[in-house]
C-alpha cells in the first residue's frame, strides 16, 4: 500500500517535471562550468529591482555558487550603458533583457549575441517560442495590451469588449492611453490597430479628446483616479492594483489580446558565458514563470497557472507582431501619431 502510493507519487512527480527540466547531463555540465565563473550580471529593463533580485536569489538557490547581480533600469538606459560598455571595450553585463525587441535585432546584426537555444524554451507558450527560434534571444516578459476600465464608474455590461468599442462616441472625454513616442508597447499597439482597422481608428479616437499619457501604465493611474473611465493598459498593472481594492477591471478584447514580447539575450563578449546560458534556461523554466505569476505578471509557460483574475496565454486569443514588422512600421507610425494627435 505504502509502496504503491510512493511509486504513484514518484510517477506523477517525474511525469510533471520531465518536460520541464532539460536533459540532466547537459544541465550538470553547464552548472559545473557556471560555478567556475561564479557569477553573472543581468541588465534588466523589465520588472522592478525587488523582483529582479528575487529572480536572482531563486537562481542561486537552484544553482548554489552562481551569484546574480541584477541591475534594473529602463530599457533605454540599459541599452545606452551597454553601448557605452561596448565602446569602452569592457562589457559589464552577461545577460540583457529589454522591452524594445529592436535592441536585440540590432545586437544580433552586429554579431554581439551568443546563439543558444535553451532546452526549456520548448515549453514556452506557442507564440513566445517562435520569437526566439533562431536562438539569439528568448522571451522573458510578455506585456499584454488589453482594455481597462474604472469599475466604480462603468458597469461591466457597458464596458468596451473589443477594440472598436473604445472609439464609441459615448466615451467622449473619457478615454485614455499612452503614446508610441514614449512607450514601445503603445507603439506596437498602434501597428496592431492600424493593421486591423486602418489608421482611421486613431482619427476616430482623437475625436473623443483622449488623455494621452506617456507609458502604457499611465492609463491605469489615470483610470484609478477617476479622471478618465476607459482605456488601454497592461492587465498585470491593473490587476495588481485591483487586488488591493482599487476600482479597476480588465476586458481581454474578444478579437484578440496583443502581446508585446520582451527578449533576453547573452552578450557574446561577456565573461560568464556558461552562467548566462544557465540563466537563460532558468528564465525559460517553470520557476521563473511562477515568480512572475506571484507578482501578477503573465507566466510565459502554460504549465504555470496565471495570477488571480488573469487569464492564461492560451485563453486570450493572443496575437503578437514580428520584430521586423515593428521595426519597419514604428517610425512612420510615430510621425502619423504626431499628425493625428498633435
Amino acid at each position, binding site marked *: 500500500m505504502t509502496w504503491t502510493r510512493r511509486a504513484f507519487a514518484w510517477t506523477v512527480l517525474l511525469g510533471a517535471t520531465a518536460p520541464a527540466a532539460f536533459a540532466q547531463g547537459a544541465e550538470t555540465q553547464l552548472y559545473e562550468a557556471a560555478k567556475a565563473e561564479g557569477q553573472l550580471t543581468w541588465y534588466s529593463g523589465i520588472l522592478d529591482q525587488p523582483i529582479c*533580485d528575487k529572480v536572482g536569489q531563486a537562481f542561486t538557490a537552484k544553482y548554489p555558487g552562481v551569484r546574480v547581480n541584477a541591475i534594473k533600469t529602463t530599457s533605454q538606459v540599459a541599452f545606452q550603458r551597454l553601448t557605452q560598455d561596448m565602446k569602452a571595450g569592457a562589457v559589464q553585463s552577461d545577460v540583457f533583457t529589454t522591452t524594445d525587441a529592436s535592441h536585440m535585432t540590432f545586437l544580433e546584426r552586429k554579431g554581439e549575441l551568443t546563439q543558444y537555444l535553451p532546452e526549456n524554451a520548448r515549453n514556452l507558450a506557442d507564440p513566445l517560442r517562435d520569437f526566439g527560434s533562431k536562438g539569439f534571444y528568448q522571451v522573458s516578459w510578455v506585456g499584454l495590451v488589453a482594455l481597462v476600465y474604472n469599475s466604480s464608474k462603468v458597469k461591466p455590461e457597458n464596458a468596451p469588449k473589443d477594440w472598436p468599442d473604445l472609439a464609441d462616441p459615448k466615451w467622449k472625454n473619457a478615454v485614455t492611453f499612452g503614446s508610441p513616442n514614449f512607450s514601445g508597447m503603445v507603439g506596437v499597439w498602434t501597428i496592431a490597430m492600424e493593421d486591423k482597422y486602418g489608421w482611421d481608428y486613431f482619427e476616430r479616437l482623437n475625436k473623443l479628446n483622449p488623455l494621452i499619457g506617456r507609458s502604457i501604465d499611465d492609463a491605469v493611474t489615470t483610470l484609478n*483616479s477617476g*479622471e478618465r473611465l476607459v482605456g488601454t493598459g497592461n492587465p498585470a498593472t491593473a490587476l495588481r*492594483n485591483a487586488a488591493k481594492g482599487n476600482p479597476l477591471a480588465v476586458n481581454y478584447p474578444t478579437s484578440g489580446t496583443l502581446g508585446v514580447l520582451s527578449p533576453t539575450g547573452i552578450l557574446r563578449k561577456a565573461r560568464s558565458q556558461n552562467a548566462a546560458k544557465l540563466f537563460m534556461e532558468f528564465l525559460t523554466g517553470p520557476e521563473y514563470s511562477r515568480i512572475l505569476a506571484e507578482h501578477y505578471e503573465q507566466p510565459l509557460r502554460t504549465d504555470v497557472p496565471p495570477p488571480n483574475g488573469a487569464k492564461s496565454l492560451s485563453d486570450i486569443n493572443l496575437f503578437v507582431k514580428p520584430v521586423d514588422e515593428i521595426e519597419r512600421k514604428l517610425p512612420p507610425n*510615430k510621425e502619423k501619431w504626431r499628425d493625428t494627435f498633435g
Partner: protein
Amino acid sequence: MTGVPSRLAAGARPRRLGAFLRLDPSALAWMAVVAVLVFLVVSPLARLLASSFQSPETGAWTLANYVTAFGRMRNLEVLGTSLLYAGCVTVVAVGFAVPVAWAVARSDMPGKGMVRALILGAFITPPYLGAIGWILLAGPNAGWLNRAWMALTGASGGIVNVYSFAGLVFVTALYAFPYIFVFATDALDRVSTEMEEAATILGASSAQTTLRVTLPLVTPAILAGAIVVFLDTVALFGTPAIIALPARIRVMTLQLWQYFEYPVRAEVAAAYSLPLVGITVALFWAQRLILGRKGYVALTGKGGSRALTRLGPYRWVAFAYALLVIALAVLLPFAALGQAAFSTAWGQGFSLGNLTLQNFVRLATDANARDTIGHSFTFAAATGCLAVLLAVVAGYVVTRRLMPGGFLLGILCMTPLVIPGIVLAIGFYATYSTPPIALYGTAAILILAFTTRFLPIAYVNAVAGLRTLNPEMEEAVRILGGSRTRAVSRVVVPLLKKSLIGSWLLVFIPAVRELSTALFLVGPNTRVISVMMLDLSENGSFETLAALGFVLLTVTIAIVLLGYRLVGRDFMLRRS
C-alpha cells in the same frame, strides 16, 4: 612696534617677485581644486561634444547629428516652446518667492520658521509626485478643486485645468521657486538696516525703502536664483512628461527622449542639447549687463545691524500670502497624495475602512527600502558638502580675480545644469565607469556625478554671497600676515555661514530626488530613492509611492529645522 612694518615688507616682497615663482601653499590648493573642478565638468562634456560631431557607425567627424537635430522646423519650434516655458516659470517663481522671502527675512510676519521649513519641504517633492498631486487636484473631470467648484455652484464643468500651458507653468513654478526663495532670504538677511534708515530719514516711506533700497541690494541673489530656475526648467523632464504630454504641449526634453527610443541616436541627443550651453552664456552676459558696475556690498567690517520692518496689521496680509503659496505647493497636493498614502486602495476614495498605515509600515520594515532611503540621504549630504566646497573655492577665485580666465571658469561651473540629465548621464557614465576612474557600482560615482550636476546651484549662490562681502576684510587679514586660506576660513566662511547652509540645502534636496543620472549610475548596492520611486510608479504601487513622498517631506523638514537651529541666532538681528 617697528616689527610690524618690516614684517609687512617681508611678506610683500616675494609677491612682487612674481606669484608664479614662489607660490604659497594656499595658492597650490586653489589650483588643485580648480583642476578637480575642470576635470569633473570638462571631461563628461568633452566626451559629449566629441560624440555629437561623430558618426556612430564609422566614428568619422560629421555635422550630420546637428543637421538631424536642428534641420527640422518642428524641432526648432519645440526649442522655442521650452524657452518660453522656462521664461514664464521664472517669472511666476519670482512672484511666489520674493514677497515671501522678504516677509520671512525682513518683517515681523508670524510663523516664519514654519513657512521656511514647509517651502523647503515643497522643494523635495519629486516633480513626478507634485505633478500627480496637482492632477488629483485640478484634473478637469475628477480634480478635487473642480468637483468642489461644481458642487458649490452647480456648474457643469470645472474651473481649473492642469492640462494646459498655464497649468504646466504654475505646477513647475511651485516646485522651482524655493531656489529663488533661499537665495533671496540669505541675501536679505545680510542687508544692514543703516541704508534703509538713511532712506527713511530722507523721507521715504517703508514701501519705497523696500522697493528702492532693500530689493535692489539683493538683485544679484534674485537674479542668480532666477537663472537657476530658468536653466533647471529647460532641462526638466518629470513635470512635462506628466502634464505637457497630455496637454499636447511639446517641449525640448520630451523631443529629446525620442532619440533614446528606437532607432536610438544618442549622438543626436547630444547635438540637440549642447547648444543649450549658449543659453547659459547668454544668461551670464545678461546678468553682467543688469548688475553692471553697481556695488552690492552689504557686509563691511563695520558690524551692521538689522531691524525688522513692523508691518502692523499688514503682517497678517503677508502671512496670508505666504500661507497661500505654501498651500498651493505643499498642503493641497499633499492632502491629495495623503489620500493615497494612508489608504489600502487609493482609487476607492476616502473612507474609514480604506484607512491604513500599512504603506508606511511596509517602507519601515523592508530592509531594502530602508537601505535605499539611507543611501539617498547620505549620498546627497556628501554631494552637498563637496559641491559647496568646490563652489566656494571657484567662486572666490572668480570674484577676487585670483586667476586669469575667471569668466570661463564661471561659465564652466554653470553648464551642467542646463544639459538635460539623461544626456549628461551618458557623459558621466563614459567618464566615471571607464579607467582611470572605474568607479562603477560605488557610492563615489553617484556623489561625483551629483556634485557635477548640482555644482551650478552652489556656485551661483556662493558668487552672490561673495559679492556682498567687502574684500577689505580679507585684505585686512592678508595685511596682518594671514594667508588666503585663513582669510577664507576665518572671515568669509563665518560671514557667509547661513548662505552656505542655504547652498548646501539647495544641493542636498535636488540630489535626494535626482533621477536621470542616478538611473545610469546606480549599482546593485547603491540604489537611491528616485530609482525606487520609478520602480513603484512603473508597477503601479501608487500608495507606497505617496507614502514615500510623505517620508521625504517629513525628513527634509526635520533636517531644515535642525540646520537653521545649528546656525544659531541671526547675529545681525538687533532686538529693539
